Each structure stands twice: as C-alpha cells, then as structure tokens.
C-alpha cells in the first residue's frame, strides 16, 4: 500500500478549529470558497414515492427540475451568499449511467439559469451510488457494476457536476454482522483492513476522473457503517457507545479518500468528518437538527461546531403547507447559516461553537465525540498509528478511554448498560492479535464468503502478511 500521509494534525490550536474555516479551503471557479469563513447551506433532495424506469424518466427529470427551481429561487429570495446542492443518485441512475448524467444536466441547467439571471452562486455535488453489491456482483473492480459506477462518475463530471462524492461500501457486509453482534474486532477488520484498501482503489479512480474533467473530488462517508450503527443505537438496538466508537474508527477509513487526493468538502452524513478536518484541514459538510427530516439524531447542534457546509441530509419532494419540502428545508438551512455567520462577523464564533457543543455533548457518547476539544485529543492518538489497521484500533481504544474518563468527570451521562459495554469492548480489543496479518487470517477464517469474499476484492492475503 501507498505510504500513509497525515502524520500530524492540521489543527493543534482549538481556537482555530471552528465552523466556516478550514486550513485547506476549497476555492471554486465561481468564487465560492468552502472553508473560507462562510458556512454555506447544502441542500439534499430526493424523489417522492415513484418508480424510476425508462417510461417514468421524463417525470423523474421534471421532479428534479422542480426541486432545483424551488431551492434556487428560495436561495435567491433569502439572499444566500451561495448554495450547494447535493443529489444522491438513486440506484437506477447509477445502474444506468445515462440517467444519472441526465439528472446532472437538468440540475446544472437550472442552476446556471439562476446564475445568469440573478447572479446566484451555486455548486452541485453529485453522489454516485456504490452499487457494488448484491447477487449479481462478480468483482469489486471490474465487470458491470464497477464499470457503471465509473461511467456515472465520469458522465456526471462531464455534465457539469462541481463535486464528486460517494458513500462507498467496501467491507460493509462484515460490518453489518459486526453491528448486529456488537463485535468490535469484526468492525475493525471491516473498516481498518478491508474498507481502507477498497477506498484506496476506488478513490484513486475518482481522483483521476476529477483531474481529467476539472471537477473536485470531494469526499466519502461511512454511511453504510457508522450511520447504520447510529440508527441502530437510536432505536436502542445496540449500545450508544458502540455507535460512538464505530464513528471514530470510521474516520480512518473515510480519511483514505483524502490520502488519495480528495479535497473536500467531505460529505454531510459522515459525522466522522470532524476528525478529517482535524487531521487534514479540509472543509467538511455536516448535518444536524435540520436533517431531522431524514433521521432523528442526538447530535442536532453539536454537529454544527465545525461545519463548513450545513446540510439537511435528504428530503423528498412532498408538499407541506408552506411549500415543497426541499424548498422549506432550504429556507431553514439558510437561516441556520445566517446565525453562524453573523456570530462570526460579530466576533462570537467561538462562543457560538461552544454553545452548540454544550447543547448536546453531555447526553450521548455520539455527541461527546464530536466536541472539538475531544476531536483534537483523539485525533492526536489516531495519527500515531503506522498503518490503517493500527490507526483504526487506536481510534477504538482512545475513544473507549475518553468516554470512560468523561463519564468519571461528570461530563457525559452513561447508564450502567452502556458502561458495561465499555468494559466488554475493551476486553474484545485486548483479546485481538496485535499483528495485522495474524488478525486478518483469523477474521477470514471466521467469516463466510457471502460476508466477505477476498477474491472479489483482489484481497491479497500475502501482502497483508508481508
């Protein structure tokens, strides 16, 4: 594997570590600078109940057109200094790259219209679906599935997308099993061994396409991993501390995108983005209270502390009394951003950040690990690791340690069931072999092929074993 980058943090001074500002801002051709001092709204939209097929495609496109119109017109009306629109393609629009490309064209068409007519600055993030799973998948890096992912990326970029993104899923089936069983070593294998390797291959390709098409490779998220844990924890199906530890472990995997050349802003639903920001200095998109339309959350405010873009995660095109839901959420995001930006302008950004953090930090370990101070502390540990495997393991143990001491210091509420699991996870980690090769061998022996088939990943066991 290519040697690791980022052996030091981009931030060591907590005072600089704040929303709206990134050490490596992303400067866009229309003049918008992400991480350059202003928090921008990032609106994410999706289709209402409807089929996507050849027959319905015209209707699909007109749905997207209507949504982008509503969003742009609201952004103009409320004088937003700029807006980012994210479209997470739905599966048929990646299985059929042309459909994804057509969606991009329609969206960009409306956005260009608002720019030329009203001067509204906007950027389009196209998120391709990682369709590399399911019964018909033959291989992760060749064959129909891979080809369609790549074609969709290239086509969307050529059709005018400003940012490319994906929520990649290499190793996900292993992780699903890990979540259901609260099996931290298996999560570690999924993320730190399989996932990180998959990310490297995938992101090398995305960065290459971006360079060739003059597009910005933005970032990835652990949606299939830590967000699954988050939703499960939220339903009280698994302990919250698992979801918190999992989130920090995921940072190492998502970070690989940046190691391979992604520039940001990292994707909204990757709450682990705060660790990427700490370690690399790239700007990040985050989501919180105004993403309740997509899922309930225990990090509604604290997630904004370090946001450079502020997102609603996803809302479908249904009518509310005040208008279509994507337009309604655009308005909410714009006001949220005004609040943060005005606080900055008045010199109260730090206080606002601290208020946002204090709002949630104490009530949930998933919130606690998003506190800027905690992020820097744990990040400092993570970068000490010499391999992705080591870093992921450190992420887990450092988080366990941090949560325990936060509880002891009265900074975090944890009930006895949660505390019990902290012990369980600590024990799980202790029992794991320290050697990556040995560990890998053990995990592969204990996994079925439908959860992880090394052949499909070109997973070279000897390379791991060195």
């Amino acid at each position: 594997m290519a040697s690791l980058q980022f052996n030091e943090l981009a931030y060591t001074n907590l005072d600089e570590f704040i929303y709206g500002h990134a050490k490596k801002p992303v400067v866009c051709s229309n003049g918008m600078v992400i991480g350059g001092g202003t928090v921008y709204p990032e609106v994410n939209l999706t289709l209402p109940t409807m089929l996507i097929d050849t027959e319905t495609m015209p209707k699909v496109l007109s749905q997207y057109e209507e949504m982008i119109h509503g969003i742009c017109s609201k952004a103009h009306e409320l004088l937003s200094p700029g807006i980012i629109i994210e479209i997470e393609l739905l599966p048929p629009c990646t299985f059929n790259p042309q459909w994804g490309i057509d969606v991009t064209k329609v969206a960009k068409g409306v956005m260009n219209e608002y720019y030329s007519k009203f001067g509204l600055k906007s950027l389009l993030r196209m998120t391709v679906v990682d369709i590399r799973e399911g019964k018909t998948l033959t291989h992760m890096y060749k064959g129909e599935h891979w080809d369609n992912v790549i074609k969709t990326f290239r086509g969307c970029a050529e059709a005018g997308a400003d940012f490319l993104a994906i929520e990649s899923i290499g190793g996900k089936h292993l992780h699903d099993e890990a979540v259901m069983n609260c099996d931290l070593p298996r999560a570690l294998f999924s993320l730190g061994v399989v996932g990180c390797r998959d990310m490297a291959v995938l992101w090398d390709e995305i960065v290459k396409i971006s360079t060739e098409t003059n597009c910005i490779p933005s970032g990835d998220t652990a949606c299939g991993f830590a967000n699954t844990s988050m939703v499960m924890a939220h339903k009280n199906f698994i302990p919250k501390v698992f979801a918190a530890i999992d989130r920090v472990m995921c940072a190492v995997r998502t970070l690989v995108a940046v190691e391979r050349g992604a520039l940001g802003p990292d994707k909204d639903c990757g709450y682990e983005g705060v660790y990427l920001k700490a370690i690399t200095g790239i700007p990040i998109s985050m989501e919180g209270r105004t993403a309740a339309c997509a899922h309930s959350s225990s990090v509604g405010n604290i997630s904004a502390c370090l946001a450079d873009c502020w997102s609603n995660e996803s809302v479908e095109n249904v009518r509310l009394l005040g208008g279509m839901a994507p337009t309604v959420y655009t308005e909410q995001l714009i006001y949220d951003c005004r609040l943060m930006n005005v606080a900055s302008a008045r010199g109260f950004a730090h206080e606002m950040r601290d208020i946002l953090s204090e709002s949630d930090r104490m009530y949930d370990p998933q919130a606690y690990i998003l506190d800027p101070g905690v992020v820097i502390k744990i990040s400092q540990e993570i970068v000490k690791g010499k391999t992705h495997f080591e870093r992921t393991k450190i992420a887990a143990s450092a988080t366990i340690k941090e949560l325990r001491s936060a509880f002891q210091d009265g900074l975090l509420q944890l009930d006895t069931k949660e505390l019990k699991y902290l012990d369980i996870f600590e024990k799980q980690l202790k029992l794991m072999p320290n050697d990556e090769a040995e560990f890998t061998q053990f995990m592969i022996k204990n996994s079925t092929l439908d959860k992880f088939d090394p052949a499909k990943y070109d997973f070279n066991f000897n390379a791991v074993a060195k």
Partner: protein
Amino acid sequence: MFDFTGLSNAVIEGDNDQVQAKVNEAISANVDPLAIINQGLIGGMNVVGQRFKVNDMFVPEVLMSARSMNAGIELVKPLLAGGEMTNRGTVIIGTVKGDLHDIGKSLVGMMLECSGFKVIDLGVDVSPEEFIAAIKENDGKILALSALLTTTMLSMKSTIEECVEQGMRNDIKVIIGGAPISQEFSDQIGADGYAGDAAAAVELVANLLQ
C-alpha cells in the same frame, strides 16, 4: 413437575454452556422433550422478546439468546418424532427489488424466529418471482416485504399484484415495513398490514395467523 426456571434463565442470559447443561439435566430426568422446548427454551426466548420490546435488551444479546436456544433444541431434536417441532407458521421475508437495505428486514426476521415462527429470509433485491417461488416451495403463510427507498416502495405493489395474478393472494397475508412506509401506503396498495418496528411486526404476524 420439572422446574424450567434455570433453563429459561440460561436462555435469557444467552449462556450456551448452561443451556446445554440444563437441557441434558431435563433429558436425564425424562422430561417430555416438547415441554423442554416450549416451556424451557421458547419460554426463555419469550421473555427475551418482551425485554427487547421495552428496550431492556440489545440485539446482540437477543442473538446470543437465540443461539443458545438453538443449541438446546439441537440436543432435544433427536428425541422428537419427525415433524413434531412446533412451528407457528412460515414467514417469507425479503427486501424488494432494487433495494439493498438489509438490516431492518433481518431484525424483523430475527424477532419472528425468536417468537417461534419459521422464517425464510430471501435477502435483498428480491424479485416478485423469487418471492412467489419461495412461498410455493415453503408453504409460506406470511409474505413480509421490506423497502427503505421511496423509489422501491412501489415494488411492493407489483409483488402483491404478482400474487394476485398467480391466484395465490388469498392463501397468504402480506405485511410490509421500512422507513418510508406508512399505514396509509399499506392500505393503498392492498397489503394486509404494516408495522413500524420488529416487535410490532411479531404482533402483527401473530394476529394475522390467528
């Protein structure tokens, strides 16, 4: 009367060794094998289901209990006449075509299994034809469909239509679920029921099979 408390508790604890020990104890004491299963093993599992429902147990704990119950059943099985196993009804479950969300559906399957139903899990991205074939093959009484995407919800409708076409709509009850699904949608597409979570799904199936 044999006291099943210890066995049930071992299931609740998910303690494989204890379960096997207690089952062997009961077998040695010549307890009716069906009673060992129903009162001891499934009895314990029922408590697990109840505790999960009120957020008193986590999924991994439920899975451990289920595994220990199964270990116990394996020991008793040889003593049972063929086919004597209790099955409250067979449920065919899967996520509909075009949709790869796995976990919600799996949890529903798990809880149904824990409650004594036989569950055939077809996985994700399952076509109407595959559902139909599985119903026929396994004498399924309940068809349980999951969808997490607004763009795959309508696959539920086509699956139900396929059942009608195959003339088997009256032989089965169709239940649906997943984040974007609502009772209203269920009524709209003519499903027999909707449940918002795994515990509710178990109740729903139990009611429908009465």
